[in-house]
């Protein structure tokens, strides 16, 4: 009997681990390395002749429109980073460390603004602050009885663009700093007080230096997001008459396409991203700040006293600008005839809904494509991430760490860069994937892989290997153990990862915009197209549908314990 068991054991060891490892290595290499290879290849290939050349890189330095696009993009990103940091840090402190009323709701609202697709935010600000039709300007003119050439705010400017993007990047800084403040143990601050430090001195000399890494890291992420963003600049910068680098790369795809130049222009963006991510990692990884890992004692709470009203006003105005006003603008536009209409019973209409859902031919296809791709991507990424993190954390195959590196790598590839790489890889006679939803599926899988992998591997490291070994030694096979023990323990994390990927997928625009065609329109692309034709009512209807789907999924995820919800509820 033992000898039979022996044979089976040996066979299953070979049958499962190694082929899985080989297959995953292949899939991940195709997903991650292939587009980067073609990107590098095309950047050295002449657009006219097809031979090897350095012309593309020379053009990159010599072409003033490209240089200007890079310069503006970097300036914009720095502006966004600065603004996010300046707004988010005091807000995080107020929420984490003071007796401000409604802290828990504020945290939830800020987290909610994570879900808003940035391009939808940009459109909301078009509705609010376009110089002629913007609601703010209409109200301003009617209050002061000014003529139609006057306006108060104009979103179609460099400053307006920075503002509109920062509204949707400040949650990165806020979340990191608030979590860091939660974890600074009060005994460090008590130690300062006992030595005679007044509360402001303690704040300045102890608390702020301790959360500085989180602040810097959050700001770097905000900068990175702004730099690689396509939607908001395309909506706000193009009418303002300037290009940032992402929109410039997209314009190189317009007729006549200059693929080699696009590839060469995308490479510096890739390099900047890698540098920023490394900087962020080294800041957060510094040994002196390991306190961010542990927790001892509850954080101390500062009483605001007479400053309370000022604090409430500050937080309320930030929340109004980033969440309340945009959402109200979207809601109003979806249910009234035109943007400028006043709200009363006679202007309320469902015509936009009728148009979007029943009359506009592209919508149903786009909705179907979007949710199908969201479902497929979320399922595929979760499955791959699950198996990769199992192989990596349990080290069942030598060399499995390599899989982990591959699965994390796409985090450093901006969407637009990946879009270029995938276009070059698959829009050719060999694959002919351009114009199908499969090229989009590949793009989304690559983009979402790091997020899925990160969630799954941290979930796996939370499951002690001895729990699985106990199953094995009690007589369960490897698969049986996975099913009976590992799977139930990971269920909530799997659900969370799936939802996370799904929400990320249905709002993706920057890679999509290069890979989509008339037959493979997605909701995000339709929104972008409708914006070009100025049909804001229909956009808002589609936006509400996207948001409703996202919030529904997040709600489901939050009902399952261990998710962000529990983190948020830990303290209010």
């Amino acid at each position, binding site marked *: 009997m*033992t*000898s039979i*068991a*022996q044979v*089976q*054991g*040996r066979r*299953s*060891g070979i049958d499962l681990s190694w082929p899985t490892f080989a297959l995953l290595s292949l899939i991940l290499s195709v997903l991650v390395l292939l587009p980067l290879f073609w990107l590098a290849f095309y950047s050295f290939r002449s657009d006219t002749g097809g031979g090897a050349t350095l012309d593309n890189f020379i053009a990159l330095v010599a072409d003033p429109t490209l240089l200007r696009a890079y310069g503006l993009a970097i300036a914009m990103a720095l502006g966004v980073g600065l603004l996010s940091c300046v707004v988010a840090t005091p807000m995080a402190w107020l929420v984490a460390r003071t007796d401000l009323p409604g802290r828990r709701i504020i945290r939830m609202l800020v987290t909610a603004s994570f879900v808003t697709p940035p391009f939808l935010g940009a459109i909301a600000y078009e509705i609010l602050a376009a110089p002629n039709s913007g609601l703010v300007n209409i109200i301003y003119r009617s209050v002061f009885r000014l003529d139609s050439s006057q306006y108060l705010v104009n979103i179609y400017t460099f400053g307006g663009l920075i503002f509109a993007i920062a509204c949707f990047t400040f949650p990165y800084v806020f979340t990191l700093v608030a979590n860091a403040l939660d974890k600074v143990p009060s005994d460090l601050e008590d130690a300062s007080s006992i030595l005679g430090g007044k509360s402001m001195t303690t704040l300045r000399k102890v608390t702020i230096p301790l959360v500085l890494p989180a602040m810097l890291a959050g700001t770097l992420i905000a900068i990175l997001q702004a730099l690689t963003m396509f939607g908001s600049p395309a909506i706000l910068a193009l009418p303002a008459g300037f290009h940032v680098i992402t929109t410039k790369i997209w314009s190189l795809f317009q007729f006549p396409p200059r693929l080699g130049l696009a590839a060469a222009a995308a490479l510096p963006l890739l390099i900047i991203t890698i540098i920023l991510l490394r900087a962020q990692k080294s800041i957060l990884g510094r040994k002196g700040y390991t306190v961010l890992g542990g927790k001892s004692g509850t954080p101390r709470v500062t009483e605001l006293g007479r400053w309370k009203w000022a604090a409430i006003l500050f937080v309320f105005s930030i929340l109004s600008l980033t969440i309340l006003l945009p959402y109200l603008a979207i809601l109003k536009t979806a249910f009234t005839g035109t943007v400028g209409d006043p709200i009363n019973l006679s202007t309320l209409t469902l015509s936009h809904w009728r148009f979007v859902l029943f009359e506009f031919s592209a919508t149903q296809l786009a909705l179907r494509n979007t949710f199908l791709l969201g479902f497929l991507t979320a399922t595929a990424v979760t499955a791959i991430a699950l198996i990769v993190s199992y192989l990596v954390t349990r080290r069942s195959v030598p060399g499995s760490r390599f899989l982990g590196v591959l699965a994390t790598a796409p985090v450093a590839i901006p969407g637009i860069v990946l879009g270029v790489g995938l276009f070059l890889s698959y829009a050719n006679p060999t694959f002919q994937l351009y114009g199908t939803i499969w090229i989009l599926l590949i793009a989304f899988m690559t983009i979402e892989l790091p997020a899925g992998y990160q969630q799954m591997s941290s979930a796996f490291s939370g499951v*002690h290997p*001895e*729990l699985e*070994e*106990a*199953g*094995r*030694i*009690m*007589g*369960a*096979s*490897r698969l*049986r153990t996975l099913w*009976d*023990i590992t799977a*139930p*323990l990971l269920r909530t994390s799997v659900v969370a990862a799936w939802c996370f990927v799904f929400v990320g997928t249905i709002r993706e625009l920057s890679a999509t915009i290069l890979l989509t065609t008339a037959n493979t329109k997605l909701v995000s692309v339709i929104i972008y197209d409708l914006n070009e034709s100025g049909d804001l009512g229909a956009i808002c209807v589609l936006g509400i549908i996207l948001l409703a789907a996202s919030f529904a999924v997040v709600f489901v995820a939050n009902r399952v314990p261990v998710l962000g919800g529990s983190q948020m509820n830990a303290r209010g």
Partner: protein
Amino acid sequence: MAFLELDGLTKSYGSLTVVKGVNLSVDQGKLVCLLGPSGCGKTTTLRLIAGFAPANGGEIRVGGKVVSSSRGTVPPEARNMSMIFQSYALWPHMTVFENVAYGLKLRRMPQSQVTELVRTILTATQLIQLADRYPGELSGGQQQRVSLARALVIKPEILLLDEPLSNLDANLREEMRFEIRRLHDEFRYTTVYVTHDQAEAMTTADIIVVMNDGRIEQSGSPEDIYERPATEFVARFIGGTNILSGTRNDKESVLCQSGLVLRCGNGTADGTTKTAVSIRHHDIELSTKPNGANTNTTIGTVTRQIYLGSHRDYLVSIAGGEMVRTVAPVNVAIPVGQEVWLHFPPEKCRALAQ
């Protein structure tokens, strides 16, 4: 023939060899303790026996059948062993009852029989009233007992324990040592027990195997290991001892570095010229006057004296600068700096080959 045999067992991780040719035979029904400092390879040896890791060389045989060798490894689930883990490894999503019943269900036992066996073992381990609790709702000691019950209920051929008591507080640990020995006397499973705590090993084991640096230093009954350590490492690790190194003087005595000649009542001083003498702290006789013996006696100076309630702990410096640690009854109170006579009874001096 022994029931569990390790034959030249070797395990390496990359260039690091952690188990270096271990040979060990365990008879059916015996409890063997693998004892050694952390990093000595004892836990790796246990994991090799369980089948969690493949062996690089040598063999493991159970009942004469090879279960691990460099050619293949029977998976853990096909070995009919069970194990108690350092972390207890109770499945948090199952109740106490479900945890214990899991192994029986895998054996496709009818539900009524499962219930009966689980209730029996839960009663034996005083857990029956906790059957519907989840592991997170139990104290450390209760979790430990659930882990024991889960391992015992499947009637394994071999029971493995990996530092099972290291997460318990001191009082509970002592109690659980006797409990484990009691359960072993009751069920008589062939057991391999890994620990770094010599008191735990002494309490529970039939045979203690002292490991160091991936090798077995010595194996034998607790008395063997304590009374007749084979190497300096074993003598130091078990119970603590004074080691006086020197050279062989004649067949029965050792010339120490201090010039002192010690007659050794046991041990082996032949073979090599370099040798050492081991004598336990409490075997040295301490007095303020010469005791009349003219061999195995030297003079020294008290450099430290500590009152420990049941006895006094002395550190005495002897000629040549060597330090000797000894204990004396509480009423022998000698101040620091005073000269004392030390007598090393020959029958307590053990010569060790180096």
